[in-house]
C-alpha cells in the first residue's frame, strides 16, 4: 500500500473510532439522525458498487431493503438477531440473483423502469401475503437499544465503503467499468458480462438487506408499504447524484449533505422542505452532474496545466 493509502486508512480508522463513540456524546434525537446518516451511507455505497461502476442504474434497491426487513420480522424471536439480520442480507442477495437474470439483459432506461416495476410488484406481493395471513402490520417488542443499532449500522456503513473500495481496485471493478463503457467491447476482451453483472448486483443487495433488518428493529413496526417504499430507492439515487457515484467519497458526502440538509430544512421549514430538496436535486442534475466529489476533483485539478491535468480515471455515470 502507498503512503497516501496508509494515511487514508488511518484517517478512516480514527473517524470510525470517533463515530463509534458518538452514543456517549449524543442525545437520543441526535443519535437517531446519526443512525439515519449511517443507513444512507451503507445503502448508497452498496448501490454505487453496482450501479455507479456498471452504469446500470437500479431504481429497485428498496426491494432488498424491504426483503431484509421482512426476513428479520418473520424470524423475530425465532432466531437470534446476529443470525436473522445477516440471513436477511443473504435473502436479498439471492433475490438479486433471481431478478438480475432477466433484468440485466436490458440496459439504460429499460433497466431503470424494470427494477422499479419489479420492486413495486414484490411490495404488493408481500402486502397480499400479509393480508392473506390476516396480518395488518407486525409489532416488534423488545428490540435492541438505539446505541446497539447505531453501532451495528456504523459497522455496515464502514463495511459498505470497504467493499466498494476493494471492488473498485479488483478485477470485478475493472470488469464493471468496462461494461459501463461498452458491453460488446468488454465481452470481446474476455469479460463474461452476465456473470460480472450478476455477482455485483447480488453483492450490492447484501448490505441493503441487512440495513432493512436493522431499521425495522429501530421502527419496531413492520408495514410493507413503508418497508418496501420506492422512496428508499429514489433517495439512494439522489444521494449518488449529489455526491457522485463511482468513488467511496461520493455516496459518503452525498449522504452527509442530504441528511444534514433534510434535518435543517425539516426543522426550519417543514412545509416546503421537500420542495426545496426537489429543486436542489434538479439543480445538481443540471449544473453539477458529476456530483460533489467530481466537482471538487475538477476544481483541484484545474490550476495544474500539463499532463497531470489529464490524469484521471474516474468518470461520471450517466443516470
Amino acid at each position, binding site marked *: 500500500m502507498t503512503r497516501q493509502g496508509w494515511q487514508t486508512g488511518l484517517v478512516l480508522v480514527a473517524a470510525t473510532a470517533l463515530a463509534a463513540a458518538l452514543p456517549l456524546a449524543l442525545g437520543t434525537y441526535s443519535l437517531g439522525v446519526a443512525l439515519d446518516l449511517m443507513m444512507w451511507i451503507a445503502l448508497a455505497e452498496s448501490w454505487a458498487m453496482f450501479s455507479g461502476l456498471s452504469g446500470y442504474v437500479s431504481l429497485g434497491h428498496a426491494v432488498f431493503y424491504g426483503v431484509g426487513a421482512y426476513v428479520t420480522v418473520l424470524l423475530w424471536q425465532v432466531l437470534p438477531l446476529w443470525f436473522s439480520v445477516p440471513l436477511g442480507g443473504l435473502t436479498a442477495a439471492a433475490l438479486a440473483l433471481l431478478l438480475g437474470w432477466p433484468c440485466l439483459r436490458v440496459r439504460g432506461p429499460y433497466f431503470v423502469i424494470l427494477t422499479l416495476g419489479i420492486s413495486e410488484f414484490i411490495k404488493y406481493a408481500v402486502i397480499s401475503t400479509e393480508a392473506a395471513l390476516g396480518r395488518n402490520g407486525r409489532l416488534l417488542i423488545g428490540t435492541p437499544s438505539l446505541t446497539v443499532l447505531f453501532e451495528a449500522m456504523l459497522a455496515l456503513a464502514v463495511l459498505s465503503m470497504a467493499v466498494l473500495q476493494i471492488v473498485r481496485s479488483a478485477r470485478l471493478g475493472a470488469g464493471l467499468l468496462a461494461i459501463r463503457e461498452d458491453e460488446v467491447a468488454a465481452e470481446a476482451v*474476455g469479460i463474461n458480462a452476465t456473470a460480472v453483472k450478476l455477482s455485483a448486483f447480488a453483492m450490492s443487495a447484501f448490505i441493503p438487506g441487512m440495513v432493512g433488518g436493522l431499521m425495522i428493529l429501530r421502527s419496531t413496526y413492520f408495514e410493507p408499504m413503508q418497508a418496501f417504499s420506492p422512496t428508499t430507492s429514489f433517495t439512494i439515487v439522489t444521494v449518488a447524484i449529489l455526491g457522485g457515484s463511482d468513488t467511496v467519497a461520493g455516496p459518503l458526502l452525498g449522504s452527509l449533505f442530504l441528511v444534514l440538509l433534510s434535518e435543517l430544512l425539516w426543522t426550519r421549514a417543514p412545509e416546503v422542505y421537500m420542495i426545496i430538496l426537489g429543486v436542489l436535486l434538479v439543480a445538481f442534475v443540471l449544473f453539477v452532474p458529476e456530483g460533489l466529489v467530481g466537482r471538487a476533483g475538477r476544481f483541484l485539478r484545474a490550476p495544474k496545466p500539463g499532463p497531470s491535468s*489529464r*490524469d484521471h480515471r474516474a468518470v461520471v455515470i450517466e443516470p
Partner: protein
Amino acid sequence: MTLLRLEDVGKSYGGVAALRGLSFAVGPGEIVGLMGANGAGKTTAFSLIAGTQRPSEGRIWFDGKRIDGKPAYAVARLGIARTFQIVRPFAGLTVIDNLVIAALYGRLRERSRGAAEARAREILAEVGLAADATRPAETLTLAGRKRLEVARAVAAGPRLLLLDEVLAGLTASEVAEALDMIRALHRRRRLTLVVIEHVMRALTQLCQRIIVLHHGAKIAEGSPAEVVVDQRVIDAYLGTRKL
C-alpha cells in the same frame, strides 16, 4: 498445421443470407487478408469467428477446439481478439486502463493489476501511445483510437488477431505508420493475423494470402499477386463490360 478453420459457415438474417458456405483455414503466424465490397460478409465472418454472433450453419475450429456458438468472452479467453470497424474504446477510461482491463480478463488473465499495468505499458510503447497512457481514451485522435483498438486487443494476449479496417480513414502517412506497427506486433508477439481492409495496396503489402468475398460467398483465394489478376475478382469489383 491449422490454427483457425471455417467449414461451410453461413449466417442468415431472416431470409437474407449474409454469408454462405465459407470455408478457409489459417496457419499459425500467417497474415491473411479478407477482401470484398461493402456487404460482402467480411465483418459478419469476423463476428462469427469472435463469437459476437452465432453462425446459422457450419463449424469453426480454433486450435483444435470447436468454437462456433461459444460466447464472445469465451472465444477471447481461448486466444482470439478482434478490433471493431467502428472503434469501440472504453472512451471514459484512460488509455492504459483500456489495456489493463483486457490484460486482466483476456487469455493471459494477469493475476494482479500491477502485472496487467506492466504488460499494458509494454504494448503502449510498441504502438506509440506511451505518452498518452493517462489520457482519457475519448481525447485521442482517430489515428490514436485505431492504435488503441489494436493495443487493447493485443493486451488480451491473443494468438489470433482479427483486424477490421484499422487503416480506414487514416492519411497516407498514418497508413504507412500503422502498417509498420502491425508488422512489428506480428513479429514480436508471434501473432496470427486475419485482416479486413479496403486499402488494396496495404492489403497486398501486408498479407501472404488473400480471400475475396462477394455477396456472402468466397470467390477467390490466393497470394496477392494471384488475386489481383483473378477475373472473378475483377468482375466483382469492376463489373463486366456489356457490349
